[in-house]
């Protein structure tokens, strides 16, 4: 009897194994369409910046174009870029600098719609360099010889801090950059593990609540209306499905404009896909959502990226941007 059970169990395991194995073939990389509606998978990050897409889906802007969004939340662009490049997702959200880095590494990507932009207002941006309450650091120049936390080394935030330090008359090479996820910055700053942090919302609000002082808005220092992030697809998908891309662009432009004009609805929809506490959400600085990307600001990022040696070779903006 025991052997029978053991045998049956093994048999069941094998059945499950084969069942799972056989389902491997149907993971079609293309978008599915039925009844005139095309479902597209979009890789997003659970942050405020992507609210326009959720809002646009809710308002029916995508439906109007015959699209249905299937958003998937990834923990960061590092998971989204390969998934879009391999066709697992049709579209993805990433900061522009990462797209340029990916391109210089030989990944064929096409940015298609604007994602999020800095507010362009000093001291009122969604990203800022902050120091602990009572810190002797008052300006970006004071960061020389200090430890500054950025979410990813050799990426947009380090670039912005470097440029901001340069503009303040300091030497960015004397700043010690350490990599730390945004959500861990409040505790690290509080415990003095870092002297300053380049943070974005909602971590920025958390830190300000604890008395942290803002010393600069590096994203604003870099370019007045900086395009921070964009929606993108693979070059291959863009070539094969120009119609779907065009529809996505139209609906996204409409969603961005709507989000920009309705901040209260944005704060409301954010609660549906994140867990940002209501008290924090009420205070976060929202990014700007212009319908078009600011090409000049992206050129600035490319130029500075080369200047500080972040790229292996020059990014080709004509191929990357819409």
């Amino acid at each position, binding site marked *: 009897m*025991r*052997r029978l059970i*053991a045998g049956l169990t*093994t048999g*069941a*395991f*094998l059945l*499950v*194994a084969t069942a*799972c194995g056989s389902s*491997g073939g149907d*993971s079609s990389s293309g978008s599915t369409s039925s009844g005139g509606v095309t479902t597209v*998978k979009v*890789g997003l*990050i*659970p*942050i405020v910046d992507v609210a326009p897409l959720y809002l646009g889906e809710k308002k029916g802007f995508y439906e109007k174009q015959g699209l249905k969004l299937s958003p*998937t*939340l*990834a*923990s960061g662009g590092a*998971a989204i870029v*390969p*998934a879009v*490049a*391999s066709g*697992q*997702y049709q579209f993805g959200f990433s900061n522009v600098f990462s797209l340029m880095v990916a391109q210089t590494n030989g990944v064929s990507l096409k940015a298609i719609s604007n994602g999020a932009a800095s507010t362009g207002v000093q001291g009122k941006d969604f990203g800022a360099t902050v120091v602990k309450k009572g810190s002797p650091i008052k300006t970006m120049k004071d960061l020389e010889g200090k430890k500054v936390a950025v979410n990813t080394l050799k990426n947009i935030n380090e670039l912005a801090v470097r440029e901001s330090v340069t503009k303040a008359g300091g030497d960015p090479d004397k700043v010690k950059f350490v990599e730390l*996820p*945004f*959500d861990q910055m*409040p*505790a690290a700053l*509080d415990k003095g593990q870092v002297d300053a942090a380049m943070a974005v919302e*909602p*971590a920025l*609000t*958390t830190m300000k609540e*604890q008395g942290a002082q803002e010393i600069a808005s590096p994203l604003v220092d870099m370019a007045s209306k900086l395009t921070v992030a964009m929606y993108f697809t693979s070059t291959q998908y863009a070539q094969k499905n120009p119609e779907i891309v065009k529809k996505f662009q139209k609906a996204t432009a409409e969603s961005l404009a709507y989000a920009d004009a309705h901040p209260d609805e944005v704060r409301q929809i954010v609660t549906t*896909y*994140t*867990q*940002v*506490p209501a008290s*924090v959400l009420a205070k976060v600085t929202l990014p700007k959502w212009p319908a078009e990307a600011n090409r000049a600001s992206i050129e600035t990022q490319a130029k500075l990226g080369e200047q500080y040696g972040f790229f292996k070779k020059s990014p080709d903006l004509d191929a990357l941007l819409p």
Partner: protein
Amino acid sequence: MRGTNAALGAAGLAAFLALGEAVPRLGLVKEAYFPPTSRIASALGDELADGGFWSALGDTLTGWAIGLAIAVGAGVVVGVLVSIVPYLREATASTIEFLRPIPSVALIPLAVLLYGTELKSVLLLVVYASFWQVLIQTLYGVQDVDPVAEETARSYGLGTWARVRHVLWPTALPYVMTGVRLAAAVALILAITAELVIGAPGLGQEIAVAQTSQAVPEMYALIVVAGLLGLLINVGARAVERRALAWHQSVRGEVAV
């Protein structure tokens, strides 16, 4: 005796929870980064009332169960085959020892490239990590077969299949069950890790979202759930082990002569 053990276990847990309440309350760590037990408990209560939490829990358990089933099935079959086919063990030994220490997490870029952020990515990591646990235990189990019993079975004219069933399998089963128990824990760790890092739906993703949202009590509540899940899985695996090995001396508690 059993009652005493349970009481001691409960007392230990209560002391641990009290410590978790006291440390932030006394200001040893900031409440903002490590909320007291009561605050985590209330966040946990909110989670339990949320439908999204249950579907995430279901996703995690699905990934765990399917991954574990594949790993156990494949581990046992491969382990037995490698052991009974002549020369195969010698031929594969170095390859197995090369592949086994590769951390499953290092395969994340590959998983994302192949399967995006779906269940299949999670399965790849879960199966890779837990497969070796079962395989190695099976290999050792098969090696432990008593040569006298094996020769006796041969001289009674038992065929290969009959010997696998009546001699090899009963010897290997205690080892296999240990492998399954280890694999069950590893599979859960990897399922949650994969969700956390890749962003596949499940508890891990919920933890990641809570983390990026600065929702600290909610994050700890979900971590507590992960811990409880591990505890339940361990208890369950031990129960299965006891049942499957009820005939074995290690469980029967008497020495066979």
